[in-house]
């Protein structure tokens, strides 16, 4: 951060946006503190429903929606929720929005809802949402909480899409259901199996960490 602030005066309009603290709240979730690749939270959905890019995208957006709404509400109510029962209150708020997205998804596409199965309901206990509520929304203003939720939500969706994309391309020869590989493409069966989720996640973590190590050295 200190490096960025030093160079502030020398750069133009775009970089002044980039250096603005509220942009930083947003960017940190997408990249620097990416919930999956850096915080390694929410492993259950990122391994279980990332067998295709479509499932991953739907799961990511659903979680992002719940994260945004619960962050707003918790941030608004942060002075009213007693400290002793805060976790229970957060879970109640999160569960409300999970129910909303559960019904909404059934209305939009019953097929998608079926393929995601129990994992929609399990958004309630997603660590990312609870950790953002506890660590951020309960201590910050609504505006900041919205930016934080958007950043984290997009970061989570991006990570899921990475895992799901790799698994779908290699495992089914398609991306978002669009088959672009030639017919004779040999499908990597392991990639649609649970083991493929672990392999892909580990491989992407390896890449992210090697980037991080390189940046820290430079």
């Amino acid at each position, binding site marked *: 951060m200190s490096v960025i602030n030093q160079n502030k005066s020398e750069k133009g309009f775009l970089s002044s946006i980039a250096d603005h603290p509220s942009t930083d709240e947003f960017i940190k979730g997408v990249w620097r503190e990416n919930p999956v690749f850096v915080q390694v939270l929410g492993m259950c959905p990122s391994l279980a429903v990332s067998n295709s890019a479509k499932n991953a995208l739907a799961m990511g957006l659903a979680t992002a929606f719940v994260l945004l709404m619960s962050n707003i509400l918790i941030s608004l109510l942060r002075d009213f929720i007693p400290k002793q029962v805060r976790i229970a209150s957060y879970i109640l708020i999160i569960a409300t929005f999970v129910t909303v997205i559960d019904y909404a998804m059934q209305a939009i596409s019953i097929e998608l809802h079926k393929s995601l199965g129990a994992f929609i309901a399990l958004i309630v206990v997603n660590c990312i949402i609870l950790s953002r509520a506890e660590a951020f929304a309960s201590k910050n203003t609504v505006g900041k909480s919205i930016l934080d939720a958007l950043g984290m939500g997009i970061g989570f969706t991006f990570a899921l899409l990475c895992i799901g994309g790799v698994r779908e391309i290699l495992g089914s020869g398609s991306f978002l259901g669009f088959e672009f590989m*030639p017919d*004779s*493409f*040999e499908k*990597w*069966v*392991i990639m649609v*199996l649970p083991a493929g989720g672990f392999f892909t996640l580990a491989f992407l973590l390896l890449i992210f960490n090697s980037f991080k190590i390189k940046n820290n050295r430079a």
Partner: protein
Amino acid sequence: MRKITLHIATSPHVVKGASTETIMKNVIYALLPAAAFGVYAFGISALLVLLTTTISAVAIEHFLCKISKKESTVSDYSAAITGLLLGMCLPPDFPLWMAFMGSAISIGLGKFIFGGLGYNVFNPALVGRAFLQATFPVPITTWYQAFGPDRFYHISSSVLALPFMQPAVDGVSGATPLSAFKFDHVDTQTYDLAMGFINGSIGETGTVFLILGGIYLAWRKMLNWRIPVSIFITVFVFSGAAYLINNTAYPSPVFTLFSGGLMLGAIYMATDMVASPITSMGVWVYGAIIGILVVMIRLWGGLPEGVMYAILLANAISPHIDNLIRPRVYGTTNKLKLS
């Protein structure tokens, strides 16, 4: 004036020159006859598969050492063994690009990620084989007939499949003795099994050569003989008991012992020095676990062959065996405590 150099060293003063390198070299010598028999039985395609896995394993080890800025460990021959063993447990007409991928997974995921030779939790060759089995279940269970008439001058087109493309089906596919028994209930003559007149992976049919190589290594004390012996005894006893109970549904213990990759696995893969227990008692238990798992998977599992999974599972258990079975400290009645 002559310079006199005085070497000061603590005992033992007589040292045997058994380095990693010599042991690994001898393992390769012991494996070569069986590999040569595989090439004789399956022809030039098998030779290509073996060369691909061995050369690519060595190349990938060198490459990974380079990019992680370590000293290259190619010269200890361990990568070559991993590659050769992987090739020997693949079908003779396996596409070369898949074989290359298997080598990359073996060295990268099975060995290098854990920190190189001496740190691998599992036998690297079997890690690669397990990955290939899960990734390409059809090509890895497609067996072509052994001793085809044109095997020395006709390269199977499935071997030369383009990268990421499905291998073309050509030639006569045949069943291995294990799958023939499991799915069609056809028994194979014990003589054919022992002499290798059967279909199967490149290195697993030359049973006689595998055993001779194993005896050579055991004689040079480069292989813990307790592991294969323990596996053979357990397999024989357990499958013999099943055979006595129901001799139509279950194969004879001799068949179980000589079929599939049991010889190759028990002698050369289960004895991986890093992934097997340290104590003699622990090694007996380790072998017994492998034997029981092999028979259980073969008799009641969905797959005809279970040596690979049995060894991998036992590798995973072996640190716990070491933890539970500890030697007595010499001269005391205390068990060794691990710090």
